[in-house]
């Protein structure tokens, strides 16, 4: 490298031949597939949640097909990340068989899936649908879920491309001792 060929000009010159590589790097890669045993472990963790009675009103639809993930992403206002996730789980419930409140039970289930995913090295986000009838109808349509089955929400899952640090959010003002 010649003395004087420094700074921006030099960098531009050097990177130009590799532009196609950089561009490829900017495209979202096909997400790394989640192993079937890890999918089962996530579902097993979900089903380890408590339920009233206990009647376990939950059902799960797992989606790994790219086109269906894209369709789901398009069907939900806040679902853009689904198109790039490796897996989605629709967390559902049969309201007929619950002895308690199905939406609370399957919220516990959903939270278990989120916690389990961390331990498996996966990243997740909970995308709510209940109580929005509109969102639920859109998801039902893509996944052929019967009208009698309720849809709490979707969990988008994949191997995270960036790390977020652990954090605590302790708010003393939300804690009341003995009485409010």
């Amino acid at each position, binding site marked *: 490298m010649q003395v004087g060929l420094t700074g921006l000009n030099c960098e531009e010159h050097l990177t130009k031949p590799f532009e196609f590589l950089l561009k490829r790097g900017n495209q979202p890669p096909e997400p790394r597939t989640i192993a079937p*045993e*890890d999918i*089962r*472990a996530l*579902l*097993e*963790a979900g*089903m*380890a*949640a*408590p339920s*009233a009675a206990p009647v*376990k009103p*939950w*059902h*799960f*639809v*797992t*989606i*790994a*097909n790219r086109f*269906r993930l894209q369709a789901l992403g398009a069907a939900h206002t806040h679902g853009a990340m689904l198109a790039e996730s490796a897996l989605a789980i629709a967390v559902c419930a049969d309201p007929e068989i619950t002895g*308690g*409140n199905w*939406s*609370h*039970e399957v*919220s*516990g289930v*959903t*939270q*278990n899936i*989120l*916690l*389990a995913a961390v*331990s*498996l090295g996966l990243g997740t986000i*909970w995308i*709510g649908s*209940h*109580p*929005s009838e509109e969102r639920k109808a859109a998801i039902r349509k893509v*996944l*052929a*879920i*019967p009208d009698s*089955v309720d849809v*709490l929400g979707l969990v988008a899952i994949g191997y995270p491309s960036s790390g977020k640090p652990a*954090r*605590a*959010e*302790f*708010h003393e003002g*939300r*804690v*009341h*001792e*003995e*009485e*409010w």
Partner: protein
Amino acid sequence: MRAAFTKKNGSMDKRLDFMFKRRSVRQYNDQPVSPDDIKAILEAAMAAPSASNLKPWHFVVVTSRGLLEELADAHPYGKMLTQAGIAIAVCGDPKISERYWDQDGAAATENILVAASALGLGAVWLGCHPRKERKSAVRKILEIPDNIEVLSLISVGHPAERKPARTQYDETRVHRERW
């Protein structure tokens, strides 16, 4: 029967031991729950996600024997509260999140149960919302304002019963790609 079911369908992945160990524990010894454990449990609760990150939750922590006994009388499935080290009333402010306060509170409740188990404590979830009589009884005892909802009571203590880790995996509840 249970063992056969587990062997056939469940894998109980070792990495998720802490999840399968969480059981509903209703018998406790008289060892108090330490302030450090209480703080850790509440921190775990507040580590739950909430819709739009609004965190609509409030927690009332009860250690007084008198109040625990009143709560035990007020909840139809709350008898174990007389033996509990603490109770936590998980509440929500619908003004902060009208549509999601209960789902967010349920996620916080589940975090409390998992955290308690990881700390060697035992806990059980006692549902309140949407049952008006349970909510108003708890509200009265804990002087919770009328504009605050009461999702659940959680009974926590040092376990006096041992329940093994278990799976409840049921393949018939899993649908691939579509229902």
